């Protein structure tokens, strides 16, 4: 981060408040954005970030407070008002028409005309210009549906630039990207910043804020906490502002009492994605799998869970041959998987908390062929209490819960089954710091009870903070095993992206 003279104030939000019947979603929130500034907006889920963003982009109208744009009172009542001022938002779910070309998407709703006909020459040349300015070399007539997530994001940014954006709001833009794509995104953000655009950057990843942002505003429970220069604070300060607790407490200390070997994996392969994966996992041990996206970690654990068929190798569970034919088979033998994509592969989104909690263990709740709904209620209420799942009732639809609470519902599902091997694939992705700490604590408690744990994570601090051993995967192979003591971010990254000599070890 470079220190530079602060730019002109573009936007000032003062004392913003918003109530929904029965609850104050926002109260007294201030936000000042300058030209060429990256301003991070930080807070746990439910802190009010989304509400604030929606007020600024015209999706909600505020109840209290004032908004100044260019020093003038601005009344944003509808998305069109925000657009006129040059405020654009890139949401996590992109707003692109998949069956239209990049150029058509960039000009969607703003197609220039010449003598009553669409001026395609301008559309194409201007689109090319915008893509070039973002260092994107894709042909402008590529269908957006065929682009990678990272490329689609670039199209969204080009679309915003085409509308003379002066403030760009980015809602967790890195959550959907791989490490390499994130670097590229950062480069683009810095370029926009240099062009004088004010950027509001929302992220759960504190590390990114230190890498990218100039200023940071923290919200908590709908209230304004503070605004700081990023250079004046460290990670501990930010966590304390967000959750009122120290970062040191996030990764629980525990004594690893390793027991017998629970799972033995030898030469496991899955198509061309995972090749020759071998390791042993002991009771009470947490193994962290590090590596870049596509290194074969997810593919390997899916085979262990019986979700995919192996193309080679063998496994043993508690010394006996283990070859699960389906997830059900794996679950019955005591192996569980928390999937990477919570919404598509984990939860039954439009069903209730109780349904999601007990769906894998209904046989245990069945007597003489009949589900014991009262026993189910008791069980579900116990887990809601034990894991501190925030829900109005067991009948609440999980789609309406925050990421952290959704993840706890999934944990409850598996914990109620008494598992021996617990595999967690990106267990804290898109989850606020408070819930993260709780999930780490749960993992730690399980390990102490003798459960063997495999954790896949792309967040290095998490891998290093939680694992007894770190397995680094690259191109379908485990290229390095690091003990807790030897594991550092540099070492892990070195092997994760390293060169061929590392494989030879």
């Amino acid at each position, binding site marked *: 981060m470079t220190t530079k003279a602060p730019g002109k104030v573009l936007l000032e939000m003062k004392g913003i408040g918003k109530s929904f019947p*029965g609850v104050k979603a926002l109260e007294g929130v201030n936000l000042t954005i300058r030209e060429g500034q990256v301003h991070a907006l930080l807070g746990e889920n439910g802190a009010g970030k989304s509400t604030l963003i929606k007020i600024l982009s015209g999706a909600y109208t505020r109840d209290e407070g004032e908004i100044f744009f260019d020093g003038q009172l601005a009344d944003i009542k509808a998305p069109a008002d925000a657009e006129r001022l040059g405020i654009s938002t890139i949401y996590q779910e992109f707003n692109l028409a998949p069956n239209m070309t990049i150029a058509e998407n960039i000009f969607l709703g703003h197609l220039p005309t010449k003598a009553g006909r669409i001026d395609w020459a301008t559309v194409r040349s201007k689109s090319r210009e915008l893509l070039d300015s973002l260092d994107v070399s894709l042909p402008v007539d590529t269908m957006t549906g065929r682009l990678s997530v990272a490329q689609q994001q670039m199209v969204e940014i080009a679309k915003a630039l085409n509308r003379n954006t002066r403030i760009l709001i980015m809602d967790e833009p890195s959550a959907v990207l791989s490490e390499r794509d994130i670097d590229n995104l950062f480069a683009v953000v810095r370029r926009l910043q240099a062009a004088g655009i004010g950027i509001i950057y929302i992220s759960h990843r504190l590390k990114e804020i230190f890498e990218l942002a100039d200023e940071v505003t923290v919200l908590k429970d709908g209230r304004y906490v503070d605004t700081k220069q990023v250079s004046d604070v460290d990670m501990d300060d930010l966590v304390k502002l967000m959750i009122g607790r120290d970062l040191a407490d996030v990764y629980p200390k525990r004594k690893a009492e390793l027991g017998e070997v629970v799972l033995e994996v030898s030469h496991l392969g899955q198509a061309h994605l995972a090749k020759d994966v071998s390791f042993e996992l002991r009771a009470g041990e947490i193994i962290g799998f590090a590596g870049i996206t596509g290194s074969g970690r997810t593919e390997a654990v899916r085979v262990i869970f019986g*979700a995919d068929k192996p193309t080679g190798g063998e496994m043993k569970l508690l010394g006996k041959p283990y070859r699960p034919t389906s997830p059900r088979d794996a679950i019955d033998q005591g192996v569980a998987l928390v999937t990477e994509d919570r919404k598509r592969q984990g939860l039954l989104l439009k069903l209730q908390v109780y349904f999601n909690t007990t769906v894998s263990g209904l046989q245990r709740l069945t007597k003489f062929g009949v589900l014991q709904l009262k026993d189910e209620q008791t069980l579900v209420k116990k887990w809601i209490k034990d894991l501190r799942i925030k829900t109005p009732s067991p009948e609440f639809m999980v789609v309406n819960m925050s990421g952290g609470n959704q993840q706890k519902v999934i944990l409850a599902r598996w914990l109620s089954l008494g598992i021996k091997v617990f595999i967690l694939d990106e267990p804290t992705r898109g989850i606020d710091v408070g819930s993260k700490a709780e999930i780490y604590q749960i993992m730690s408690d399980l390990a102490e009870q003798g459960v063997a744990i495999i954790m896949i994570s792309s967040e290095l601090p998490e891998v290093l903070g939680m694992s007894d051993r770190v397995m680094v995967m690259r191109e379908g192979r485990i290229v390095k095993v690091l003990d807790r003591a030897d594991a550092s971010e540099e070492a892990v990254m070195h092997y994760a992206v390293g060169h061929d000599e590392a494989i030879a070890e």
Partner: protein
Amino acid sequence: MSSVQSTALDKRQGFLKIVLASPILGPVAALLLASIFFAFATPRFLSGDNFSLILQQVMVVGVLAIGQTLVIITTGIDLSNGMVMALAGVLIASFAAQKGINPFLSILVGILIAMAFGMLNGALVTGIGLPAFIVTLGTMNIAYALTRIYTTSTITGLPKELTFLGDTFKIGGTAIANGTILMILLYAVTWFVLKYTAAGRSVYAVGDNVEAARLAGIKTNRVLVGVYTFAGLAYGIAALLQVARTGVGDPQAGQTSNLDSITAVVLGGTSLFGGRGSIVGTLIGALIVGVFRNGLQLMGVESTYQVLITGILVIAAVSVDQLTHRK
């Protein structure tokens, strides 16, 4: 959005939301309103005999709709049910009346053939991964053709075992058909299975998200084949009801039953997007259609207009459903 806010929204819309979001209350309200309207519009509507008649008129589609409900909860759709019913009905009637086969054995074979069609639908949907719409469009035509190949004439002279379900008994002067009791029994059993068994839960889980259900340990292929086969069982029983009610084996039966059963399911609040729906709702949905048809008939409205009004009803019901469940 934060959970705090959505909770508050829930509270605000409390009563309205319960009425609109409950799979049953909306259809029940519609049924009551329609009944009140017809009670005022025509003096003959409000009588025990007329209600009994409505129940007899809906029992065939009502039982078909049981199978349709389960299929739709799993995000599928079954276009074949009317034709499968016609085939099973013709075979049951022909075996018993023309081939001299024991009537009960005839019924059993007819039902098994309907179940075999269901199982075929399920196997094609899971095994090859074809959309249910296409699979059942195909089996619908196959069942239709097989019926016509077997016979094009109506089969008469049925033994009394085949018409028993069309017979009535009297409770306090009102005649009630045996088939009506069977229909209500089938609804009760299905309701119990959906609410009180692991298998019933699996149906909803598969309908919400088939991959997530598989990764939660549900044998999704087995559930889907089971659902389509169970639906086939319902169609076989519907065939028996159809035969009993009309007293003949009719190769022309069931021509519009697939759409009629979908109408009942949709009016009953089951989502075509899967994962959400109620079997009691379907019964109410079938009754709504029955009440409208009957009431309009009593008012002297032509049958073409009855169809028109049913069409409007379906679109209105699905629109209300869509608007109340939109995120």
